[in-house]
Structure formats: structure tokens, C-alpha cells
């Protein structure tokens, strides 16, 4: 067992000569809630995109549980155990809520069911379908979405769409969950609910969580450790309380 669930080594990427992100070193321990913060355009989402295979890093590499994942395709990385949500919610809008979650089970070995099984509706197909539906309902009930399970995702209110996205990511049974600005667009009430949910997820699923967030109350409230990015470079990292006191960080956030 490795000490770190996620470890990046000098992770960086250039777009047409511009170094968007450079030398990012993340060390995320098991069951940690780790924050990635920084001003707009600092390259936080780009880091997420590299970690999930959307972009291929041009420098450095990263490891999940000691296994190097650099160069794998997005779906392979997901199968290895990194799941994510998006800054702007990306649900399968024309599918029902329960099916959104069931898509997440796609690669789980226990729901293995070949294409031929499905075409002929064999016993295996029916069993896995039933099991998947039951499991999806479990997950939905955790997030309080059970009653809406047969609505189209498109019709959910904003807050519940966020939750559904997290539920879908969890359904893929990841080792590491990446949350991209989960509290964006939420009021303080919803944000504090969300904090509860994130903590609950960590405890219930033994999950390691890496999140990007602008809402400092949320960051200060739940993150164990932080990394601050500025202009694609690491500005500070360490315990949350200490990092937030760092004058450099304050300067980056508040300006001179």
C-alpha cells in the first residue's frame, strides 16, 4: 500500500508554447479532503483535465496508488479509479436520474454483462440489470434523490443536479474523486449542506477527495490540506489553516 493515493511529479502542460501549468506536485493521502485553490485562470481545471486524461501532460507524470496513469485514455483512467465532476454540470440530460447513475456502473466487474447477453436478454442480463438498479437506488437515497429517480436529469433543480453528478462519479467506484467547484452557484445554506455531503461521502465510501473551490468558507471548513496555484505554478501547499495565513496566498487572492 502506497502512502499517497495521488502523487504528481512535476506535472505540467503547454499550449502552443504557453506554459499553462508547470511543476505541480500534489500529495494526497487516503481519506483526505484535499483542496486545490487559486485565482481564476490559475490552471486548476487544467490540472483536473490532465489527471483525467482530457489533456496529455507535456511534462511530469502522476500516480494513483503508485500506478502511473499518464498517457491512458479518459475511460481507462476512470476504470483505474479516478472519477470527476465538472465545473459546469455535465449530466446525461435526456436520461432519467436513475439511469445517469447506472451509466456509472458500466465498468464494474460485478455488473459484467456482454453485449450478446443483452441482445438475448439472458438471465445474466436480467440479474445484472436488477442489481444495478437496486444499487443505483441505494446511492440515490444516500443523496436524497430517490423520489426523483424517474425524472429526466434535465428537469432536476440546480442543487440536485450537482448531487447527481457526484452520485454518478461515485457509482464508478473510484479511489479518488475530483470535484470541480462543487459549490459554484450555491447559497450559504446549500453550501453547508454540500459540506456535509462531502464529509459523509468520505466517511461512508472511504473516499479520497480532491476539490477545486473558490468558496473559502467551504475550503476552510472541510479541506485537510491545500495546494494554491497561481499562474500555473504552485504558490503554497500544506495544512489548510497555515496555507490560508500565508501572506503570498493572501496577496494572490486580494491583490496588492
Amino acid at each position, binding site marked *: 500500500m502506497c502512502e499517497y493515493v495521488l502523487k504528481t511529479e512535476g506535472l505540467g502542460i503547454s499550449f502552443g508554447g504557453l506554459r499553462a501549468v508547470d511543476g505541480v506536485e500534489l500529495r494526497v493521502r487516503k481519506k483526505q479532503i484535499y483542496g486545490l485553490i487559486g485565482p481564476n485562470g490559475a490552471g486548476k*481545471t487544467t490540472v483536473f*483535465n490532465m489527471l483525467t486524461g*482530457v489533456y496529455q501532460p507535456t511534462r511530469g507524470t502522476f500516480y494513483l496508488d503508485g500506478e502511473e496513469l499518464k498517457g491512458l485514455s479518459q475511460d481507462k483512467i476512470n476504470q483505474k479509479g479516478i472519477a470527476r465532476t*465538472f465545473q459546469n454540470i455535465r449530466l446525461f440530460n435526456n436520461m432519467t436520474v436513475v439511469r445517469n447513475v447506472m451509466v456509472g456502473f458500466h465498468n464494474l466487474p460485478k455488473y459484467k454483462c456482454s453485449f450478446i447477453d443483452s441482445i438475448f436478454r439472458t438471465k445474466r442480463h436480467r440479474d445484472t440489470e436488477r442489481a444495478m438498479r437496486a444499487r443505483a437506488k441505494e446511492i440515490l437515497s444516500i443523496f436524497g434523490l430517490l423520489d426523483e429517480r424517474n425524472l429526466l436529469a434535465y428537469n432536476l433543480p440546480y442543487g440536485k443536479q450537482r448531487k447527481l453528478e457526484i452520485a454518478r462519479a461515485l457509482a464508478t467506484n473510484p479511489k479518488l474523486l475530483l470535484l470541480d467547484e462543487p459549490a459554484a452557484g450555491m447559497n450559504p445554506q446549500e453550501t453547508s449542506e454540500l459540506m456535509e455531503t462531502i464529509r459523509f461521502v468520505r466517511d461512508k465510501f472511504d473516499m479520497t477527495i480532491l476539490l477545486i473551490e473558490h468558496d473559502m468558507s467551504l475550503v476552510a471548513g472541510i479541506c485537510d490540506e491545500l495546494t494554491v496555484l497561481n499562474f500555473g505554478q504552485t504558490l503554497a501547499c500544506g495544512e489548510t489553516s497555515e496555507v490560508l495565513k500565508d501572506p503570498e496566498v493572501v496577496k494572490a487572492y486580494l491583490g496588492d
Partner: protein
Amino acid sequence: MEFLLTLINGVSLGGIYAMIALGYTMVYGIAKMLNFAHGDIIMVGGYSIFVFAATSFGTLPPWVSLLFAVLMAVIICALLGFGVEKLAYKPLRGASPLAVLITAIGVSSFLQSLAQVFFGSAAKFVQFPDLGSLSLGELTVSYSTLITLISTVIVMLALTLFVKLTKTGRAMLAVSEDREAAQLMGVNINFIISITFIIGSSLAALAGLFSLMNVPFIKPTFGSLPGIKAFTAAVIGGIGSIPGAMLGGILLGVVECFSNSVPTLAPYTNAIEFAILIIILIVKPTGILGKKRREKV
């Protein structure tokens, strides 16, 4: 010699394709729709020239009557493009592009059958004053070919300047880039789209003229093949790109003529043109001059 002649023929044909493709590209870039009825607007332009040239020949000098016919064709096509947009496409603004595509197909078929009702199915010969040809040593190039080519270049340059320099043109770019934002900035979307259709349809009328100068026969299905070819040309050049439409059109015309000039290849001309399209798109998924676009995650 043979080679040069084929090349000139190809460039001339390509000029016609380019003219149509320019209209396609304009409409596509701004209204974001594949206007399958564009080819049939060429047909309407052709019939207008036929009607007005026939009625005014004899009473007016040939050149004047031709110019008069062309002018009428441009006006009729512009009105038609404007009307079609208002009646058939505007109600669907905001609906799925597929619905608009199907409507465009319906409009195309409607215009074709309307032409058959009015003019019959047989091809009509369109009289043109003989423009003669230019001799350069052994080479003879007809003036109609030259006119086609020069006009296409002029139209392309004019369009480029129009889009780059005028207020309306810049508004067009803005609408193309982000319709909502443009609207918020005070651009009148309906006006811009109408203007686009008017320009595109006027170009179609000109394309009708050049097609008729090349082959002086008009029939209800006159526009459908050039329409598809020009669409192909626009995609090869990168749909949405004005220079791309020109490039794609010329390329396609040259390929078509060279393929036709080799007896064993001639039956496969269409297949060759489409194969080139596929290869270009596989190598460059947005066509030669199309903007490369990356999706933001």
C-alpha cells in the same frame, strides 16, 4: 496543351462551384444551417434569366438585355432567399438543426416541383449573346470563362472586405461567434440573418448566370447537382471560411475536369471527388481552411 485546356476548364467550372459555395458558407456560418435549398435558388435564378432574357431580347441590345436579366435574377433570388428564411427557417430558430435541415430539404423539393409546374420538365435553352473567345497562341479561352473567374475572385474579395470592414460585416462575425452575446451587444439578429440570406441568394443568382454561360440549358433539377458539389467544395475548404469556399470550389472543379479527361476514370468522377473529400476530412477534420476548434472542458 491538352493539360492546360483541361486546367482552364477545371478552373472555370471550379469558379462556378466556388460562387455557390460562397453562398453556402455565408449562410452556414451565420444562420448555422445546411441550406439544402441553396441549389434550387440557383435554379430560380436561371429561370429568371431565361424569362427576362427571352422577353427583352430583340427589343433591347443583347448586352443590355442580358444585364437586365441578370439584375432581375439577382433581385428575384434575393427576395426569394429573404422570403424562404422568413417563412420556413425563422419559425424554427432555436429548434434543432435537424429540423431546419429537413425543412430546407422540403423547401428544395417544393421549389423544384414549382418550377416544373410553371416551366415544364424539359430543359430550356437560354440564348446568350456570343461573347467570343480570347486566343493566346494555341490556347483559346472563351470570354465567358474569364468573366466567371474574374467575377468569382471579385465577389470573394468584396465579401472579405465587406465582412472585415463594414459594421454589418463585423456584426455578422459577431453573430457567427456567439449569437446571444451579439444580441446583448445590440446587434439585430433578424436583420443580420436576413442580410446573409439576401447576399447568399444573390450569389446564387450569379452562380446561375455563370452556369448558364457555361452550359446554356435550364431545367427544374438544374441546381441540385451543383448544390451538392458546392456543399462538398465548401466542406473541403472548411465550411464557414470564405477563402476556403473559393479554394474548395476551384479544387473540386479541377479534379472533376481532369478525372473526366481520363476515359478509364471518367465514370468514377463523382466517386473520386467524394473520396478526396473524405481523405481531406480525415486528415483535417475541419477542412483545409476551417477553424480548428477545441472543446472547452
